[in-house]
């Protein structure tokens, strides 16, 4: 038995102590999935919901380096409700899903928190027609909202400046924090930046920076500071510009 199989089996045993209706399946060599009924009773702000959903939890090949993905297989959650096109549930902004999983990378924690919360949210929505914990906008705007909340700022330039540090892999604790507080990073936004940086590949932040850029409104584009572009993105844009210039010259 490989190490990862042993780990998965151990984690599953722990999970099934709480959730007895789940089964562990090896769909293909080292492709692990968990199927079955997830029955729970959860309370948020004094509202208790008891419910059960059919779910499919797929473990990635490199589990537990990246978090599992989840699908609802009972046909209860409609396509329009917080899902990727492949019907995987959007438990939260990807960076947040990773952050929470990495904080305690065990199946039982993942299911107890992120999965149950999502299903609670849906069941609540089904019952009362609103989302109990609010929701992020879809697409790029939602990513922007996530970071604005995380960094506790409305200023999108600050979000981009911090994301640039992350995407460039250029964290220096003694540098001045990009938010303009006058404090050094370590004593300001540093800790939340570092937590994410430690867990996740920097490509994630390049992607999220791109998302935040997409979300910019025209008025925000006008006084946009181009120095806030992550290096990799700037390189790509320069390359595109050169390519275009070359082509125009030929034509």
């Amino acid at each position: 038995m490989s190490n990862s199989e042993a780990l998965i089996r151990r984690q599953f045993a722990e999970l099934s102590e709480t959730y007895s209706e789940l089964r562990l399946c090896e769909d293909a060599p080292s492709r692990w999935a968990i199927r079955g009924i997830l029955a729970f009773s959860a309370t948020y702000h004094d509202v208790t919901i008891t419910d059960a959903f059919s779910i499919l939890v797929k473990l990635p090949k490199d589990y537990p380096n990246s978090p599992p993905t989840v699908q609802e297989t009972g046909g209860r959650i409609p396509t329009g409700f917080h899902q990727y096109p492949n019907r995987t549930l959007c438990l939260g902004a990807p960076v947040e899903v990773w952050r929470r999983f990495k904080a305690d990378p065990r199946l039982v924690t993942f299911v107890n928190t992120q999965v149950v919360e999502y299903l609670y949210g849906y069941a609540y929505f089904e019952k009362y027609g609103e989302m109990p914990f609010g929701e992020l906008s879809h697409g790029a705007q939602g990513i922007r909202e996530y970071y604005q909340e995380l960094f506790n700022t409305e200023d999108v330039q600050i979000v981009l400046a911090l994301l640039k540090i992350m995407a460039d892999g250029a964290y220096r604790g003694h540098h001045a924090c990009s938010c303009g507080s006058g404090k050094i990073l370590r004593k300001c936004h540093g800790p939340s930046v570092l937590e994410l940086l430690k867990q996740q590949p920097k490509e994630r932040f390049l992607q999220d920076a791109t998302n935040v850029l997409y979300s910019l409104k025209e008025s925000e584009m006008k006084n946009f500071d181009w120095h806030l572009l992550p290096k990799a993105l700037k390189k790509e844009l320069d390359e595109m510009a050169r390519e275009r210039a070359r082509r125009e010259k030929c034509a």
Partner: protein
Amino acid sequence: MTLERDNELRQFLQQLAESLDISDAQYEAAIKHYEAVGDWLNKDGSPIAEYDPQIYPQGSFRLGTMIKPVNDKDEYDIDLVCELKALRKENVTQKQLKDMVGGRLKENERYRKMLKKGKRCWTLQYADSSRFHMDILPAIPDEEIDGIASGIGINLAESAILITDRELYQWQRSNPVGYAEWFKERMRIQFTAKRMLLAESLRANVEDVPEYKVKTPLQQSIQILKRHRDIMFADDQDDKPISIIITTLAARAYNNEADLLEALQNIIAKMPSLIERDEQGNALVTNPVNPLENFADKWKKHPELETKFLQWLQQVRADLEAALQAGTLSDMIEELKPRFGDRIVNEAASKAFPDHSSSAKAVASVAPSISITKPSKPWGHE
């Protein structure tokens, strides 16, 4: 396997098929809607009336194998042909044909608001509670197909039509009526028997029982298979087995079994062996009314489609087996839920076993109690 489970699964599948089917009211509403479209196309003053337009259903609506969508919010898609009977391909281009039909639909204020243009067809989006839309595919008769030479028979060849391709560039052969006749022939014994039984119970003449009210084990097996497929491939739309292959192979496999479970088991067992091979070893699922058309032509370029198709059949077989092996009725129902969807299984189980209370309540009482503190906000991909 116990005799008890065997009988329970029979009752369950019967209810499942009925729950999957669209209701009589929906059938009737759809028929009313498309007949109204036909009237509008033929009405005095219609510029295309002279070409004798006829509108008729094709696909699963015509075959009686349509199923409810997995999600309540999804819509029924009813496929129609609008054949301009008096028009010939020498006298019209693909684009002209499409514009003629669309043009006439647009002359009606109500249809104009509902109309959407597709690559080949016109879509009428019905806003009312019926939640369906109709795809109207413009067509003309295909006079060149030779029923005897092609081996499909003169009768079936008569209904052959020409439709346009997606680029409005070439004519393509089709024969939805011929296909439906072939399909009906495959289940004729059961169809006639069921229709007679139904007529008796309704105290009506056999001819007065509308065909859509009759459901044979073949149609029901296809409905059950399609639902299983929809759930299994929910996150893998690209590899999802297509309905026409399932329908064709199932109809070929069907032996006019009167019992649904027997029919389903036989169909699943025989379908793989009915996939033929050409000289190069490529898979062939030929169109019974157009031997030149291979429904499985995509499998050549994407061999994984065939693998997935066979894996899926294997899974259906294993799932039925697991249901039959279940220790109790509750276990059987729980076994089936993830395969066909919670809600439809609950619905069918409560109809098949009214005295049996679902085990969901029992599960919930032992469920962990979780207190949510700092939840994530759900996000959505665009």
